[in-house]
């Protein structure tokens, strides 16, 4: 079973040289720490920055320079800054090659829910609805089961949706899964030490799995 950093490490392997990438808050942010040497990527922060650099050195924080998680950050040589309308313009027009975001639930037809728990938590969708509606390549980083042990990979989402029929790849603490265009999760890889049976038990939506599924290579 993977921890959060393990999930981030596995997702980082999906990043190709030359990609413009938008990383959501939470586990997706950690992906930046595992981008392989020699793979050149430009990170977009939807508050208006391309070319997000590392956190500043202590004492060099600049209140005017933050990422979408409101963390102090830096720029890199070649960075650019723009307003929020242009930021979502480049997202909508599919200039961003890969979007990585978190989810509370994903369904077997590629629906995603990640912005609201009715009566309990109202934080808002931020840029997530824009991202999932337009991005051509989305990876969801999420927990396979909740704290009560219930699956978050469902036949149908129970929470208010963020987007419909838009997710094709999910990476969890247990597995890498594709979502098939005709519906259903397809098990691609297992986390180290996790059995296919355990993944089946932990997936409430329709799951297609061969008897022999390869283990993730995290190196």
């Amino acid at each position, binding site marked *: 079973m993977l921890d959060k950093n393990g999930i981030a490490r596995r997702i980082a392997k999906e990043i190709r040289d030359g990609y413009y990438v938008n990383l959501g808050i939470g586990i997706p942010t950690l992906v930046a720490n595992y981008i392989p040497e020699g793979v050149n990527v430009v990170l977009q922060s939807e508050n208006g920055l391309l070319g997000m650099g590392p956190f500043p050195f202590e004492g060099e924080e600049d209140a005017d320079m933050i990422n979408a998680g409101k963390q102090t950050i830096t720029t890199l040589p070649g960075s650019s*800054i723009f307003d929020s309308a242009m930021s979502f313009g480049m997202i909508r027009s599919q200039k961003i090659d890969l979007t990585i975001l978190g989810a509370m639930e994903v369904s077997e037809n590629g629906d995603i829910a990640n912005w609201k728990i009715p009566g309990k938590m*109202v*934080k808002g*969708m931020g840029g997530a609805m*824009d991202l999932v509606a337009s991005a051509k390549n989305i990876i969801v980083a999420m927990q396979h089961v909740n704290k009560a042990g219930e699956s978050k990979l469902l036949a149908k989402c129970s929470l208010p949706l963020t987007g419909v029929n838009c997710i094709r790849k999910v990476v969890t603490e247990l597995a890498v899964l594709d979502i098939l265009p005709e519906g259903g999760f397809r098990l691609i890889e297992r986390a180290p030490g996790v059995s296919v049976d355990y993944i089946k038990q932990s997936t409430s939506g329709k799951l297609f799995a061969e008897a022999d599924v390869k283990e993730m290579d995290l190196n």
Partner: protein
Amino acid sequence: MINKRVADADEAIRDIIDGQTIMLGGFGLCGIPEKCIAALVKKGVKDLTCISNNAGVDDFGIGLMLKTRQVKKMVSSYVGENAEFERQLLSGELEVELIPQGTLATRCMAAGYGMPAIFTPAGVGTEVAEGKEIRNFNGKDYLMEYAFDADFAIVKAWKGDTAGNLIFRSTSRNFNPVMAMAGKITIAEVEELVEPGELDPDHIHTPGVYVHRIFQGSDYEKRIEQRTVRPRS
């Protein structure tokens, strides 16, 4: 050049009245019009509809206006980080319209560009789409979203001149340029106000035609929400 200078935040917001709709620039606490927010709290104007990406934190930004119950309705994309906001919302004291961040920005842009509406795929198939017209273009569904109609837009820039031209700094630009374009009356507060001719026309982000009042603020707090640093190696 037309001189748009006003003395201070109090003069800039003098005619904002109860029940009006105001846009406030900023992302989180970055690039928010601190001085005008303080002046609005002092003035005590109430029943406001505030269009702003976020709602501040409990003791800063728009959070200050929530605490004094001056806000009737918030139109935002993300409102975490504010316990008082969540309390007022769940108890029904505060109305909130949550809209996707790109839709928020583009509805501002549309207002500034003189376009009545936009089409966006954000929110199709979700509760955001309820009651909205859907049009299909090239096989994909899009929601029709209207341009905002705001009585005032209040923005914060780094530098400006008395003709109203604005230059923003780093990611404090965010929503400020599109909101500056979208207000019936736009108020800009700047860290440094200069005379016309001192800013290079090639470097202007917001042309002065969009700005009606401008003043220089002082002692900006510029609070950092998440101070993240790395060790020096």
